[in-house]
C-alpha cells in the first residue's frame, strides 16, 4: 500500500486540453496498443474477404457467399489453416524457416505505431494523442522498419532450400531495395515542405498548406508505384510469380505459416495505405475545413477525424486491389528498368524542382500557407501534363515497351527467320 501512494499523483484529474500525466500516458498507451492491434488484425482478416469479393465482382462472379453469407469466410479460412498439417522440408534450415513468417509479419505491424489516426482525444485525465507512439523521428522509423520486411521474404526463400523459393527471395530483395530508393527520394519532397520528419507535423503542414497529393503530385505517383513494389502486390508480385516460380518464396510453406505470409502482405498493404494517407492525403485531416485541426479538441472531432482517416485508408486498400485485378505482372527487366531508369531519375529531378521552387518562394517572402500551396499546385499541373500526356508516348513511362531498340528488333527478326547474324559474320 505504501508503495502505491506516490503513484496516486500520477493519475490526477487534469485539464483535458493539456498532455496527460505519465501514469495516464502509460495506461493510455497500453489501451491504444490493444485496441489498434485488435482492430488491425480483424481488419486484415476482413481484407482477405474484401480481396476475394472485389476480385469476384471484377470478374463478374459473386465471390464467397456460403459461410455466414460470406462474412465468416476469414474465420473459416483461419480454422482451416490452423487444422492443416505443418510440413517441413527435410533440407530446410529449420530455425530460419520458422522465423521467416514472423519476420515478414512483425515489421508491418510495428510501423503502425507511429501513424496518427485521429485528432487528440480529451479525457478527464488530460489530452491523449491518437497515435500509439508519437515518435519525433516518426517517418524515418517507418522507412527503417518497413524495409526490414524484405528479410522475412529473403530468409523464407533461402531457408526453404528450394530453387523456386530462392529465386523468389532473390527477386524480392532486388525489387524491394530498388524501389525503396525511389520511395525514399519521393518522400524527401514531403520533408522539404513540412520541414519535420514527425508524421503529426507532416499532417499539420498539409492541413494548413493543402494536401501533398496536390502540391507534390509526381512524388505521390512515385511513392504509390514504389509502395506497390514494396508490398509485393501486382503488378510487382515477382517474388511470388505463380506462373514462373510455383509460389515464389512461400512455395514450401503450409498451414498457418503460409497464412502468416498472407497476413503480412495485407498488413503491409494497410501500412502502405496509411502512409500514403498520412504523407499525401492529409492523414486524419477533414478536407475543406480548418475546424478539425484547431484546439479545443473534442470527442466529436476525434470521431470525425478517425472516420476521415479510415475512409482514406480504405480507399487506398480498395485501390491496391483494384490495380491487382486490372494490371498484369511486369517482366523482370521491365521492373528493374522502371525502378532504376525512370523512377529514380524522376524522383531526383523532382526533388531539384521542388527544392528550387520552395527556395524561390521563401526568398520571395510568400508565407507557407494556402498561397504557397496554390503556386505549387499550379506548377504540378504543368508537370503532370508534361509527364503523362506529352512524355508518356513510349518515351518515358512505358515499361510495356521493352528495352529493345529498333536495330535490336530487326536483329531478332532476322534470327527468327533463320538469318542469324553470327552465321552472316562467318560467311
Amino acid at each position, binding site marked *: 500500500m505504501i508503495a502505491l501512494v506516490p503513484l496516486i499523483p500520477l493519475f490526477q484529474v487534469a485539464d483535458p486540453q493539456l498532455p496527460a500525466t505519465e501514469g495516464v500516458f502509460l495506461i493510455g498507451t497500453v489501451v491504444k496498443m490493444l485496441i489498434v492491434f485488435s482492430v488491425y488484425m480483424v481488419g486484415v482478416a476482413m481484407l482477405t474477404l474484401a480481396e476475394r469479393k472485389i476480385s469476384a465482382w*471484377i470478374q*463478374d462472379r459473386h465471390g464467397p457467399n456460403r459461410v455466414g453469407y460470406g462474412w465468416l469466410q476469414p474465420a473459416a479460412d483461419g480454422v482451416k489453416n490452423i487444422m492443416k498439417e505443418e510440413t517441413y522440408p527435410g533440407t530446410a534450415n529449420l530455425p530460419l524457416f520458422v522465423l521467416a513468417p514472423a519476420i515478414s509479419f512483425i515489421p508491418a505491424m510495428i510501423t503502425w505505431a507511429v501513424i496518427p489516426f485521429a485528432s487528440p482525444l480529451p479525457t478527464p485525465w488530460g489530452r491523449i494523442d491518437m497515435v500509439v507512439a508519437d515518435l519525433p523521428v516518426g517517418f524515418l522509423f517507418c522507412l527503417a522498419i518497413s524495409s526490414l520486411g524484405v528479410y522475412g521474404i529473403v530468409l523464407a526463400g533461402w531457408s526453404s532450400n528450394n530453387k523456386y523459393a530462392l529465386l523468389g527471395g532473390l527477386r524480392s530483395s532486388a525489387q524491394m531495395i530498388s524501389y525503396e530508393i525511389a520511395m525514399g527520394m519521393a518522400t524527401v519532397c514531403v520533408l522539404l515542405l513540412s520541414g519535420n520528419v514527425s508524421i503529426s507535423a507532416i499532417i499539420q503542414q498539409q492541413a494548413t498548406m493543402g494536401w501533398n497529393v496536390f502540391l507534390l503530385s509526381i512524388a505521390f505517383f512515385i511513392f504509390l508505384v514504389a509502395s506497390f513494389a514494396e508490398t509485393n502486390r501486382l503488378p510487382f508480385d515477382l517474388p511470388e510469380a505463380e506462373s514462373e516460380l510455383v509460389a515464389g518464396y512461400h512455395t514450401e510453406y503450409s498451414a498457418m505459416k503460409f497464412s502468416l505470409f498472407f497476413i503480412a502482405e495485407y498488413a503491409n498493404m494497410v501500412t502502405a495505405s496509411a502512409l500514403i494517407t498520412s504523407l499525401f492525403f492529409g492523414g486524419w485531416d477533414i478536407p475543406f475545413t480548418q475546424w478539425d485541426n484547431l484546439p479545443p479538441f473534442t470527442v466529436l472531432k476525434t470521431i470525425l477525424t478517425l472516420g476521415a482517416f479510415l475512409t482514406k485508408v480504405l480507399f487506398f486498400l480498395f485501390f491496391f486491389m*483494384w490495380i491487382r485485378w*486490372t494490371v498484369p505482372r511486369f517482366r523482370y527487366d521491365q521492373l528493374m528498368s522502371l525502378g532504376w531508369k525512370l523512377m529514380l531519375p524522376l524522383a531526383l529531378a523532382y526533388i531539384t524542382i521542388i527544392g528550387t521552387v520552395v527556395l524561390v518562394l521563401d526568398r520571395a517572402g510568400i508565407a507557407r500557407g494556402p498561397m504557397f500551396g496554390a503556386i505549387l499546385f499550379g506548377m504540378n499541373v504543368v508537370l503532370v501534363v508534361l509527364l*503523362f500526356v506529352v512524355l508518356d508516348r*513510349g518515351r518515358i513511362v*512505358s515499361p510495356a515497351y521493352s528495352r*529493345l531498340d529498333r536495330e535490336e528488333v530487326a536483329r531478332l527478326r532476322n534470327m*527468327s527467320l533463320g538469318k*542469324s547474324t553470327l552465321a552472316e559474320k562467318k560467311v
Partner: protein
Amino acid sequence: MTIGVKVLDRPIEEVSYVRATLKGMALTFKHLVDPHKVTVQYPEEKWDLSPRWRGTHRMLTTEDGKSKCVACGLCPTVCPANCIKLVPGEDEQGNRYPLVFEIDEFRCIFCGYCQEVCPEEAIHLGRHYENAEYSRDKFVYDLERLSTQTHPVCEMWDPADPKGE
C-alpha cells in the same frame, strides 16, 4: 541457332503505360459495379441439360418391372471402351435375359453407341451428372442399379432436328 522469338513491332509513339492502366481500371470498375454476374449458384440453381446430354446409364424396364434387355450382345460388341459385361440367360419360355449386366462407368467414354445399337431400346444414357461415390467399386453399375435409377434419359438426337443441324 534459330529460336522462334516473336517480336511485336509496337509503334512507340502510341504506346503508353499510365493512360493504358487508367483505361484498364475504368473497364474493371465497370465490371465491378455491374450487377450482372455469370456464376450459377450450383446446389440451388442448375443448368438445363441438353436433351442430347450423355451421362451415366439407365436400363429401362417393362411395365412388370423386368428389364427390357434381351441379352442380344450387341452393346458389349459395339462398345469401344469394352466396359459392358453381359452374361446371357434363358428362361423356361426360351426368352433371353441378362444374368449379369454391368457397366464400368470409369471405363465408359459416354459415346452412346450402346444406346444407338440396342434393338429393344433398353440401355440408355442419362441426362445426369451428379455421380459422386465414396469408393471406386461403386462405379461399376450392376443391372439392379441401372434399372432403379430414375433420371431422364438421353435422346441421342433431337426429334425436331433429326439431322443435327
